[in-house]
């Protein structure tokens, strides 16, 4: 029986890709005041950003409770006896804890391994997709877990934020604190380091941000896959894909949308780029 792969909605894996690769995506929750929505399931990404920018309620996000994972594990246990769960960085969300907690709450005979990816967005997504392909090729749980752990340091995420306002409001600013006090309007470029959002550098305009993301890729000599994500500006992301495919014609470039959960912190106009280095 093939190992089943589970991740959370912060991986930004699209429904199509999830279905194609047999990945189960457990949604986080987005809350506007009293209203609670399952990430991307009960509220479209477009609607989310509209409310984020226009509404006066600042959304908060929550991890899926362990029960959500219990349900998923039980369902999958009917089809397999090995499950691999790869979650968003435990420094950014309690999803990892929930996934871990749920492990001991099922009676079915099924081995479950939960890995904290210490990544987010496609930084997580590309790792999970690679794992799903390897699982499809017949790898067992131990081999897969090993594969994922080795892939984590090869996954490099850079995010252009049009503003730090939302990250600050959500209280997740972490080491990016140093970028806050700017008196000029600056656009920070962040990465994820040791599981936390960390500043990389700063630019003054969206175009310079796009250039930075573009120039980030040629720094790697062997590339397995690339991913480009937008929040509210698909045209900019498409432009980046176009420019990248001119210099990387053979590499697979995935397109995705920054999930509302991350969007709560990244805000509108954010762009993300992930490089998964080849071994």
């Amino acid at each position, binding site marked *: 029986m093939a190992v089943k792969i589970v991740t959370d909605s912060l991986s930004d894996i699209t429904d199509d890709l999830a279905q194609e690769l047999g990945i189960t995506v457990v949604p986080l929750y987005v809350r506007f005041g009293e209203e609670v929505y399952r990430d991307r399931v009960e509220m479209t990404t477009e609607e989310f950003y509209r409310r984020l920018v226009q509404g006066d309620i600042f959304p908060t996000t929550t991890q899926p409770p362990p029960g959500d994972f219990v349900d998923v594990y039980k369902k999958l246990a009917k089809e397999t006896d090995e499950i691999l769960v790869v979650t968003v960085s435990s420094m950014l969300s309690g999803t990892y804890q929930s996934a871990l907690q749920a492990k001991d709450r099922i009676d079915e005979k099924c081995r479950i391994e939960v890995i904290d990816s210490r990544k987010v967005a496609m930084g997580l997504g590309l790792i999970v997709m690679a794992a799903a392909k390897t699982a499809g090729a017949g790898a067992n749980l131990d081999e897969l877990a090993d594969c994922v752990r080795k892939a984590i340091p090869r996954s490099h995420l850079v995010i252009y934020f049009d503003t730090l306002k939302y990250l600050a409001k959500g209280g997740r600013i972490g080491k990016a604190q140093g970028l806050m006090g700017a008196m000029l309007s600056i656009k920070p470029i962040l990465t994820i380091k040791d599981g936390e959002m960390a500043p990389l*550098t700063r630019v003054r305009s969206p175009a*310079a941000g796009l250039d930075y993301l573009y120039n980030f890729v040629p720094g790697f000599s062997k590339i397995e896959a690339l991913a480009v994500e937008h929040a509210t500006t698909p045209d900019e992301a498409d432009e980046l894909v176009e420019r990248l495919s001119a210099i990387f014609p053979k590499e697979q470039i995935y397109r995705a949308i920054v999930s509302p959960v991350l969007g709560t912190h990244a805000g509108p106009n954010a762009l993300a780029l992930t490089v998964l280095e080849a071994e």
Partner: protein
Amino acid sequence: MKPINSIGGQELREMFAAATGWLEKSSAEIDALNVFPVPDGDTGTNMLLTMRSTIEEAYRAPDHSASAVAHAMAHGALMGARGNSGVILSQILRGLAQSFTEKESFTAAELAGALQASSAMAYQGISNPVEGTMLTVIKDVAAAVQPEMTGNDKDLIAIMETVVNAASESVANTPKLLNVLREAGVVDAGGQGLHTIFDGALRFLRGEMEQMRFRKPQIIVTDVHPTKLPQMIAADEIPYGYCTEFLLKGEKLETEKIRKKLEKKGESLIVVGDDSAARIHIHTLEPGDVIAYATGLGTLHQVSIRNMDEQHQDYLEMQRDRGPTVDTAIVAVVAGDGLADVFTSLGVTAIVPGGQTMNPSTKDLLQVVEEAASDKVIILPNNKNIVATANQVQSLTEKRIEVVPSMTIPQGVAALLAFDYEANLESNIQIMTRAMSAVKTVEICRAVRSAKLGDLKIKRKQPIGFLDGDLVAVGESSLEVLNKMLSKLGLSKIEVITIYYGADTKSAEAEQVASDIRSQYPQLQIEVVRGGQPHYNYIISIE
């Protein structure tokens, strides 16, 4: 959620135990907020230790009435209070205890009343109450629940929600009340701690114990931007002396008299307690005098005398860990308070005052380089006459010095912005130098004398414009000069224009110049910042 109409002693204890657990999760973060009254970074820890002593004592209460538990808690807090914040916290608990005297349990209205007593009690015992601290937070909380002091059928959860919301707003407002917080861009640590305790209590009442295990309290973020680096904060208040605290036990102690006596001995004096036990906290240069006086009144317990300079050093260490990597320090030469703020906000480690007509000496630069807490230092001279001086520093220090030869302020800003937190020194020098060359600088000042330069005829006091250091334009007004220069530049590749106006230039004039350029070039992003620089009316960055 089921409303809660009354709380007895056992629930009161459990509620505060939960709040203590909640506080524990963020005590380190609260430590890092601490700048007032001295930046020693221990407020979170002090409040936590005070709460632990409070809860321990709560379990020794003679019975399970709200009165007995609250009094035990107040006693535990007094005995275990640490630091300013701990002492104020103990006063808040004492206010609750007094209000709950002889009550089996208390209602929402009674809690609202007790918080009034807590607020009043918190202000007592402090010789110089300062607003923008946890005192303000408890006062604002009391004011928020004051209308709820009557009626029997109110829900305690609802009251606590009001408390937490009021505390949250009050904490967020603390930087507006207290200058030292505003400069550091943080909220008051004690206020934050109090908010966390109330928040933990509320979550307990809501029955969220399970969720609390996997969550962390939120530190309230201020939208005030820091203008000073950690090492500059409260630097004018040095020397700090000794943080002296102890518990005085005796008979017929008169706290009011003790307070009067000690008032002149130091700062941040707190004397709280009753006639048999008093807790004393003072920042003094002569702890011996304070101790000698107190031993005449009774016995001393839990005596602690700490050198605050050392505490302050520890705090600086902690701030270094907290910020983005300072593996590499950046020193910039800047004139003008506005420009100094710009560079500081973008993360320079230190600023050496200087610029056109006021070049710093090698010694000035060397001194700042030596003080920087890093072995690798990048210098941004920001003026062509200072580049050579900066280059000399390397031969005078053991540290590794690199000069990014910025000739103008805009070049310095561009280089600083491009600094890559993850790159090594060599790469950063390349990255910064490349970024620097991508920006154009326009400087506009008044001619000091009449002159003829090539085609340009210049009259004394006429505005003249330099492009990257070369005199290229003259005109009747700054705007005219700028327009002449922009028209020659070819703006198709330009995105951002930043206008830094000088100390002698009015902001209205700068705004006028900006709006004029905006109307001519609507596609550009144009920003106006007060640079406060001498000599140049305008320094303009074009990138």
